[in-house]
């Protein structure tokens, strides 16, 4: 018989289902992702640190997991919720099932609840703190735990996912990310050196930079400007990462010091940090944007990109300083989706041009960044 697991929200709602993955008790912000594919990429995306992620698509685990489709070395999210977990993995690339994968990685997961009801709750009330447990099944106790859990506003979650040391990136995009006939083979020498500040970076970003013929050095996001500049980069990349950008003050200071000294490109948290470094403010969205179908209008070309997104905070348009120009807008709620510094070589997007999971419409941004770099030799 399957074990029971319960999810309690801070507003007092409790959902009872069955447990899969690891047993245990976790707290986190309960959010939902509307991607119908790509759960393995989502699981391994460090930006979900501190969050319990609900998949809106009900059938999850169908194609199992494989060794390639990972965005970091392990899952980072606090908990995982699905309507239905597939007991078999059916795909020619699969190396195992989802349940085992979560067990191996100690991720507590819940299945069999009315995920749509949960999503509607979050949509109406906003993202909430919650506790997912297979141990404590007392509902009142769980609700109290949810209420008293730390949440993620004001917390620096980046510290929990930054790499310990720097490394040189040597991995290309998966051949499955490309159309047959398109090659991602590298030329013998890479002429541009990009330093990527890793705040919990999805590996597909580094793969893209590498395939744009860049020499990529990944530095922990805690690095100082001096440490960055010591590597003589032709450009600096600011990665995605978990949680609230405001407490990540060291990174904001670092970016302020880098601005004007080297071209900068930021994604997601990196975008928010760049905005903060330029004097803008960020705010928490009601329940965030998490999915692979978010339309973004490129204001420079008038073309719409279908983008992959994962953020709970956004840049406040009203707070933008004059030097920051909006380049992209989210068409669903008109929030700022892309910025450009009008005087210095720096730009950023709120969404994920590296996709994974999601559409490839915005890959051009990596090329754009690469082309803005002038190799210093």
């Amino acid at each position, binding site marked *: 018989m399957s074990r029971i697991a319960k999810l309690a929200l801070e507003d007092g709602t409790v959902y009872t289902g069955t447990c899969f993955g690891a047993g245990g008790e976790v707290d986190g912000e309960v959010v939902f992702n509307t991607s119908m594919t790509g759960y393995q990429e989502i699981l391994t995306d460090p930006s979900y640190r501190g969050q319990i992620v609900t998949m*809106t698509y009900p059938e999850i685990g169908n194609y199992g997991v494989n060794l390639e489709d990972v965005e970091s070395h392990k899952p980072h999210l606090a908990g995982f919720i699905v309507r239905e977990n597939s007991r078999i993995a059916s795909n020619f690339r699969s190396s195992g099932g989802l349940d085992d994968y979560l067990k191996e990685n100690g991720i507590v997961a819940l299945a069999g609840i009315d995920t749509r009801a949960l999503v*509607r709750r979050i949509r109406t009330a906003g993202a909430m703190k919650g506790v997912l447990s297979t141990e404590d099944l007392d509902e009142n106790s769980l609700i109290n735990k949810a209420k008293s859990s730390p949440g993620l506003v004001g917390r620096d979650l980046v510290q929990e996912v930054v790499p310990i040391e720097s490394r040189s990136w040597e991995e290309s995009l998966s051949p499955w990310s490309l*159309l047959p006939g398109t090659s991602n083979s590298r030329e013998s020498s890479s002429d541009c050196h990009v330093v990527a500040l890793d705040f919990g970076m999805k590996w597909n970003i580094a793969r893209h930079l590498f395939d744009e013929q860049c020499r990529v050095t990944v530095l922990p996001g805690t690095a100082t400007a001096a440490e960055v500049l010591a590597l003589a980069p032709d450009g600096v990349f600011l990665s995605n990462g978990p949680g609230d950008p405001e407490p990540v003050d060291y990174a904001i200071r670092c970016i302020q010091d880098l601005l004007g000294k080297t071209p900068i490109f930021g994604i997601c948290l990196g975008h928010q940090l760049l905005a903060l470094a330029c004097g803008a403010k960020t705010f928490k969205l009601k329940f965030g944007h998490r999915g692979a179908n978010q339309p973004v209008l490129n204001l420079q070309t008038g073309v719409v990109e279908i983008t992959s997104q994962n953020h709970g905070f956004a840049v406040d348009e009203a707070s933008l300083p004059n030097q920051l120009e909006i380049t992209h807008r989210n068409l669903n709620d008109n929030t700022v989706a892309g910025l450009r510094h009008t005087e210095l070589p720096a730009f950023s997007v709120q969404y994920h041009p590296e996709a994974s999971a999601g559409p490839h419409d915005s890959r051009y941004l990596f090329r754009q960044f690469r082309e803005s770099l002038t190799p210093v030799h």
Partner: protein
Amino acid sequence: MPRRDDIQKILLIGSGPIVIGQACEFDYSGTQACKALREEGYEVVLVNSNPATIMTDPNTADRTYIEPLTWEVVEKVIEKELPDALLPTLGGQTGLNVAMDLDRHGILQKHGVQMIGANAAVIAKAEERDQFKTAMEKIGLEVCRGDTVHTIDEARQLVTEIGLPCVVRPSFTMGGSGSAIAYNRDEFDQLVRNGLDQSPINEVLIEESIIGWKEYEMEVMRDLDDNVVIICAIENFDAMGVHTGDSITVAPAQTLTDKEYQRMRDASLAVIREIGVETGGSNIQFAIHPSDGRMIVIEMNPRVSRSSALASKATGFPIAKIAAKLAVGYRLHELPNDITRQTKACFEPTIDYVVTKIPRFAFEKFPEADSTLTTQMKSVGETMAIGRTFKESFQKALRGLEVGSFGLGCDSKDLWGTEDQPAANEIRAKLSIPNSERAWYLRYALKSGMSLREIYELTKIDYWFLDQLSQIVELEETLRGFSDVFAVDDATFLQAKQCGFSDRQLATIWQSNEMAIRENRKARGIIATFKSVDTCAAEFEAYTPYYYSTYELEDETPAKQKGKRRVMILGGGPNRIGQGIEFDYCCCHASFALRELGIESIMVNSNPETVSTDYDTSDLLFFEPLTAEDVLNICDRVQPDGVIVQFGGQTPLNLARALSTAGVPIIGTDVETIEAAEDREKFQQLLNRLGLKQPANGIARTMNEARAEANKIGFPSLVRPSFVLGGRAMEICYDLAQFERFVAAAFVVAQGQPVLIDRFLEDATEVDVDAICDGRDVVVMGVMEHIEEAGVHSGDSACSIPPYSLPGPIIQEIREATHAMARHLKVKGLMNVQFAVKREAGEMNVYVLEVNPRASRTVPFVAKATGVPVAKIAAKVMTGETLADLGVTNEPIPAHVSIKESVFPFRKFAGVDIVLGPEMRSTGEVMGISERFSIAFAKSQLAAGVVLPESGKIFLSVSKRHKEIIVGLAQRLSKMGFDLLATDGTSRRLRGAGVEVERVKKLAEGQPNLIDYLKNDEVALILNTPNGKGARTDEGKIRAAAVQHGVPCITTIQAAEAAVKAMEALRQEDISVQPLQERFKEIANDVVTVTASS
């Protein structure tokens, strides 16, 4: 960019009659397009030959031409209307082909009409295999190895390179018609020959076989700014080798990782860009190798399709509507998403449920046809079901199919554990050769202990799907472990419902009955919840109320609006022969009527092709199977003030009793009355009381009873099972031997219900009458005289409004009989009566054949012929309005003649005899309108694809009883300059009468015989009335060969007479076209009075 101002008038071409491969979905897309364009202020000119459509309602487009869909006729429309643009991508393959013909003949250039959406070059690039292949190679995508050929020799050369098995596909045919897999040289030669013949450009594509690969479809939209979005990815449950229209399909894709899905998305974007479809929807099909992921592009449809209708219903994204708006200049992000209102149409829908579509077949109607599923589409309809899990949606779809199954087994059709339980070898055969029953045989395989691996090897159905079915079967075993419904625990009960088990299945498992299970279930609080289809997985609030049932925590059914009545309309379910678009048309009109009356309308249907399942049609839409359980579950939640069962054909009528017993308020004619009309005895009493005649008849429950009845009734007699639609297993018997054979067959079909036996009236004229009664007053809406004699199913015969040969007093007698019956039955709503008029001993006698107190198949035709919205008026009457209130007091008598002609799927079923009989086999209908009967008939033939020749050779062969009449026809044909061919008997007869005729050998007399003439394209028309029937007779072979070679073949003497008349008329007068709006202007202005037409 806002709408284009440089165009004002836009021409749309519809898809014509319902045929296999082209059904209601193009009424859905065309209607959406008309509405969308008119909303933007454009004037819309529509041409479509199919009267049974919402799109040809006079208020859907500005100018509506119900005319044959040939480029010559459409040119006349263009000359008259001078449209600025032609939108060719919303009328299916037919609309696209007519548009291409217009372009090819320079008509568009001549009149300055521009193609919008996709131009001719783009269409050719997508549709012509060579061009498409080159385009795909250019963007680095793989296509099947293969090439096009134009002769059998080229084909033989090519196959030595590609090898067998290989796929043979004729170019430019609809629904992949003529496509099949050749496993050996003989098959190959035959398929290539047939294919060359069927292809309008005599071209066949021969390709490597990718049978067993995984099959996917992507629905793609693009705007003028090159914004491209994917609306839906569909994964086929059946592997490559079965036409996607015949496959069980599932949305979204289930077994692709994000990497593989995005690669297919990238490929789709590359394809639509390379082909250059400027705006609108396209469908791209892919095959993926199951063990290495190799991806092949199968084909692209540069237009909305059956799949795009499915994708629209599966996601809530209105592809056709948006496609129409994009064609006139809008960008995707300038258009709102109707469902969320706050977001834009430029996004990719994400869904939080699983959609399963299952095709419905009609092989029982074509016993001689090969029922193996191949790359040529054979299904006649489909059902779609939505569930929160695949298991739920799959079982819902199986019961939505309405083939007597209530899920995956555990019902009265279940063979497991019975004497007929299939043996291992039979199961293996049913798995390896795709067929319409494979889903159930997969269960048998699992129950027999066959491993998933073995099942996979036989079927190539993905392991994930097989495991899902395995879970259903395992749960079935668990459920069987409980002695009865009282023994089962709540959690297991709920799990069963969440996996889609119907109460009926549970009743079978626990030896109970459906209603007892239902009571027990509800007492436990296990009650269906309804969730909304919202394009966005609940990320945004949905405003368009489109729902499906599931068993979850939260219900989203909207509360009743204060002070507003709620009326529910039950639709017709999947299309089948005998029940299709005509009934959907009626259901839509019922909904329109309710809206006009300020009543909240609720539609329940499971057919994704239809206008009724457009979320715009009704106030609430429930996409659900039409079973008592599913409908009662909805009633529990929405508490309707009335339910309409009259409009959806036999499907809702079959539920009427159960619903009424459960306390659901059925409005309109009483359930008792509906049953009384079906009850032979009661009906006979009524006729006797009214002094009306009926052919001698009887009813039998056993063969002995049947023999006794036959003795009383005499021969010829008509045998049929009761309570079935479309003349299923209905046969005319001339002797006892035939009689016994057919009665036995009818008992099988009747499934426990009795068999009906009638005296068959030979050479009688059949008349259909549609009338509306409000319980007190009766108004006849149309009197239709059939062209073919009684005995040909009314759904298969052509008919005319007004009657063309019957004398006035007889028509008056028919009217009066209709009035009397409607009044005595206390009909509230529509009633259809079939009469036969037979000349006996010098006088004409009127017989009542059948009365149906419900909407009939002819309602839309009557509405189009008269300009009166018959179904809408009937719906209003059912809600309590009177005919007097509505100002409907007189029978509408049109100033013109309208002919309905039926369209048959014989080309899809090689070798089937095409002779018409009491079993209905047509899939669709067309209409011809003119001031003259002969021209209206000519138009109806042209619209049905029967091209009446202007010159050439005509083969005559008639049964003994028509030898006299054929002489006159032969003389007239000869006078028109046709050369006549006939076999020995007929030719002697004709020569004797002084008609010049060439004698042809009978098949048994050696060669060259008629088949050789057909093969050599030497015959322009065949007039053949049968002596015998069946594909094995010489005549049968000739008729089947005629179909194969595309030679029109007329099989009744009445139709032959009408055709000769039409051919004579066409020599004097050219076909002219007129929009309905002009035809009915006069009627609208004039006071219509009841007069007997003469």
